[in-house]
């Protein structure tokens, strides 16, 4: 574990889990560490992002900069200092 800080942008449908804020800063040296810190103590939030096996759910996308982390090594991808992760889920409204 490291103390490097990561900013995570959270889409509107998931903001209820973080008190309505649109982004939070958490510690984490990898994507998994940052998302674990984000969801710490919130089983429902964790369940929303991860399968029981600890994989990222297929309908949740996470981007480092503009790239899907699945293409950057997945949850174990290392995060540079000051990284910004963007969580994304489908929006339906029209």
């Amino acid at each position: 574990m490291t103390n490097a800080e990561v900013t995570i942008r959270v889409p509107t449908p998931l903001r209820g889990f973080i008190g309505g804020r649109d982004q939070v800063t958490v510690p984490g040296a990898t994507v998994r560490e940052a998302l674990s810190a984000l969801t710490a103590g919130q089983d429902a939030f964790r369940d929303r992002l991860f399968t029981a096996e600890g994989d990222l759910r297929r309908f949740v996308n996470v981007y480092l900069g503009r790239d899907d982390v699945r293409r950057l090594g997945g949850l174990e991808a290392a995060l540079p200092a000051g990284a910004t992760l963007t969580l994304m889920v489908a929006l339906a409204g029209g």
Partner: protein
Amino acid sequence: MSLKDRRLADLRARIAEVTAADAVALQRDGALLVDVREDEETATGSPAGALRLPRGFLELRIEEKAPDPARPLLLMCAGGTRSLFAAEDLLRLGYGDVRSVAGGFSAWKAAGLPVEVPPQLDAAQRERYRRHLTMPEVGEAGQHRLLRSRVALIGAGGLGSPIALYLAAAGVGRLTLIDDDRVERSNLQRQILHAESRLGQRKVESGRAALLDLNPTIEVVSHDTRLEAANVLDLLGGHDVVVDGSDNLPTRYLVNDACLRLGVPNVYGAIFRFEGQVSVFGGAVPGLRPCYRCLFPEPPPAEYAPSCAEAGVLGVLPGVIGTIMAAETIKLLLGLGEPLAGRLLLYDGLRGEFNEIAVPVDPDCPSCSAGARPELNDIAAVCAG
């Protein structure tokens, strides 16, 4: 000898002339045939494949159509005289190989060479589309292209309103509206296609009335029905672009998969509260552009799906996203610029920020990867609203 005849004799000695038959062969080899007669003259017929550019605008506009000064230009008028003057002007402008078609359009017709009657804009259309016609990127050819275009619009609601209004205003010749709702008062906070006076009407009929009021010269086809696997190919087939302004995930997956089957680009947009997403999916050679399933391979299960009942949205948000969708649609129809494909534009209304994420083609995409044949399914509603 008159001044004119003396000048013509001088020009004939300096400007190369070709026969009409030679002009056809040169045209096939890449030369640009330019009919420099006035619009009234070309209205009844002009050589097939010719650029029609009246002599008065020749120097002003030729570079838009012939940016390579080395490309051979063949100028034609009615009898082969004005084209000599025009040829000299273009040589002076800097073109290296400019020739005049001897005998002009009369000789062309006499030789039985192919003639086309260019589509014409009437005076009212010229006035209506003037701001398009004066832009070289659209111009008369582009406006004709819009007028011949067919766009299917799924949803005549929040996103559908600005999209339909701007496409109708732009002169998209046929708009197909697909929606199965009625106009309710709570729609009017954002659905500017509708009006208090049309409360209770079917949305496609209310929309049709509004669009024809804005532009009575286009055709608006209305389908008061819900898209389903059984009707989607029939309803979307025959269109140049499909615009997805629907309000639920099952329809979005169905539209994506149907568009892949039809090979038609799908302009996608979605909104929630202060947030919006826009992109262009499919509609190009396989593997070139991603599809919606490259971004979201599958919908979330019902318990994680966005709740429609709570799906508030800032009234202007569909305007922001819908107008970008309309712009992308017109760009696709005209082949202009770079489509918003391979990336998803994210709008955060509260922060006033646009961001972009990459949406690469997924080589394992269940719908658009090599060999995949997208199935059309009615996914169970993942939102009860």
